């Protein structure tokens, strides 16, 4: 990990020139904001006063919706104006400064200022049981640290009831592939009941079956901070070893120091999901305060180092169990993120008794031009026999795709079903019992 001293040097050499330019832009934005918003607020005030004078205080006695939507409209328009003013400045700042800092820390990491973790994945972690009505986020980073794949972004999720929205989660949402394989789900939720009520609190917690059965662990400090729920008692202990529990406790303390208010964790589908609730935005530039203060810029660096440090803090690079480090190409990383490059479908795995390489009897020759109804035309890269059909990997103009041979029209079309003779010679499809 990069040190502070290295960052200070990077700041001097690479960031400061950009920052000086951006400072000019920032001052322009700030002035514009004052120019537009102060008259706007005065206007709104006058409007409210006139309405009150004419309709009387009936405006406030009116049904909540009218009053609420009036206020919402005022603030909505005000925010829209502000957002329009600062939009390009924020975009430039993130493009130069944040991207620079991410690249400086680790140039294999991919930063996208408008990217966010998919809503599906946020729901998948099952930490927050409420349905999400409004979901937004930005500042997504995707990459690999050591043997661990990570991705994180800022997320703001809300649910609405009767025109008011309540925050489900606002802060940093971090996903990493865990160093052990497991089937069920385990949750670490902040433990308020036990700290406040002691033994009775624990009893109450065991009645809350929303996340599964309560799992009582041995580490007393850990137990005071977290309530653990899981689908399986043994699996929860398999994941939460005493050493991991200690690491989580230390990480929780570290996160409080970094400004995170709450920590929720869940282990689902061999991944670890960490939801750190922040009250502040992490990677946003300041509009009304100068950006030439190195302390402020260093805060971005510190935040980034803190998040990337989760892998070390939880020792996720220790891969001595059956889940060996992934050596495969990071194709599936792309499919998990929104707004990324087109998904690259992996070729189906070959089954025993079935030859995996293109034979002369394959439907298309490698390099042959084929066309598809939806994807257009492309060249064949490979053909794989899977069961009764051929899966053909084609390089279309939109990217590589794996499609069934019967959907492709090519030059000379050979048989695209595996005939009985071929079955006899090359082995039966794997699912057919003798």
């Amino acid at each position, binding site marked *: 990990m990069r040190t502070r001293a290295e960052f200070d040097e990077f700041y001097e050499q690479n960031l400061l020139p950009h920052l000086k330019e951006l400072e000019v832009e920032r001052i322009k934005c700030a002035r514009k904001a004052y120019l537009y918003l102060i008259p706007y607020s005065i206007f709104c005030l006058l409007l409210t006063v006139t309405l009150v004078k004419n309709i009387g205080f009936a405006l406030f006695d009116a049904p909540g919706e009218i009053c609420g939507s009036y206020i919402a409209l005022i603030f909505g328009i005000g925010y829209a104006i502000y957002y329009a003013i600062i939009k390009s400045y924020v975009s430039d700042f993130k493009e130069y400064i944040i991207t620079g800092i991410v690249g400086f820390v680790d140039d294999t990491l991919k930063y996208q200022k408008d990217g966010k973790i998919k809503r599906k994945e946020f729901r998948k972690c099952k930490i927050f049981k409420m349905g999400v009505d409004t979901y937004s986020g930005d500042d997504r980073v995707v990459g690999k640290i050591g043997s661990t794949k990570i991705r994180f972004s800022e997320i703001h999720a809300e649910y609405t009831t009767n025109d008011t929205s309540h925050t489900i989660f606002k802060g940093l949402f971090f996903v990493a592939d865990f160093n052990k394989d497991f089937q069920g789900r385990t949750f670490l939720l902040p433990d308020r009941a036990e700290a406040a009520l002691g033994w009775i609190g624990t009893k109450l917690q065991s009645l809350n079956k929303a996340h599964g059965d309560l799992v009582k662990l041995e580490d007393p400090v850990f137990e005071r901070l977290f309530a653990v729920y899981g689908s399986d008692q043994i*699996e929860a202990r398999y994941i939460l070893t005493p050493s991991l529990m200690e690491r989580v406790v230390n990480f929780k303390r570290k996160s409080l120091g970094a400004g995170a208010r709450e920590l929720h964790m869940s282990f689902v589908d061999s991944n670890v999901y960490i939801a750190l609730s922040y009250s502040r935005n992490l990677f946003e530039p300041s509009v009304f305060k100068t950006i030439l203060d190195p302390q402020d810029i260093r805060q971005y660096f510190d935040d980034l180092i803190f998040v990337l440090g989760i892998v070390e803090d939880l020792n996720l690079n220790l891969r001595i169990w059956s889940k060996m480090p992934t050596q495969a190409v990071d194709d599936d990383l792309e499919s998990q993120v929104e707004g990324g490059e087109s998904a690259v479908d992996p070729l189906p795995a070959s089954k025993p008794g079935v030859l995996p390489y293109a034979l002369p009897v394959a439907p298309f020759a490698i390099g042959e031009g084929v066309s598809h109804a939806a994807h257009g035309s492309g060249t064949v890269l490979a053909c794989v026999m899977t069961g009764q059909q051929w899966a053909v990997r084609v390089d279309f103009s939109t990217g590589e795709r794996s499609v069934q041979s019967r959907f492709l029209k090519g030059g000379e079309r050979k048989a695209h079903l595996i005939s009985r003779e071929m079955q006899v010679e090359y082995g039966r499809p794997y699912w057919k019992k003798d």
Partner: protein
Amino acid sequence: MSTSIIIAVVIAAVFAVMIVSLYNSLINKKNSVENAFAGIDVQLTKRYDLIPNLVSTVQKYMKHERETLTEITAMRARAVSGNLSDNEKVALDNQISTALSGIMIAVENYPDLKASQNFLQLQASLNEVEEQLSAARRAFNAMVTEYNNAVQMFPSNIMASYMNLEERTWFEAPEVKKGDINVKELFDN
């Protein structure tokens, strides 16, 4: 009906509900303990299945460890043969643990073995089983704690003595493991 009869009936009903719930919760805890012990059994079986694989992979390289290897094979045969009481199972398991850890440490002396792909995967499987086993043991201890709590605390201890339920013992580390490891001694072997 006079109020005193109603009160008596209500009290009797509450009392009956209490007795039933105490009985049920004790049965529940007792079964959790049995279930957790069965979980340990499953992991032990997995470990026994890995031992022949380990012995065959390792014996080509580890010429000096032949004795330990034959010992482990014998212990495994005994464990798999069945007809062991719970305590015997635990004792045997502890002995096998000690022998296995001895072999794993001795592997340090054989760099060829450490680099072999077969051995690395085997080591990962063994680590996996050890991790699961230790999780199963911890789960068992947790269940036993809850069960013992119920058997000893008031008012369920009255019910427990009526049902003739006794305390169970936790899983403890074997005596050999608890003592400090003398590293020099290990490397002298």
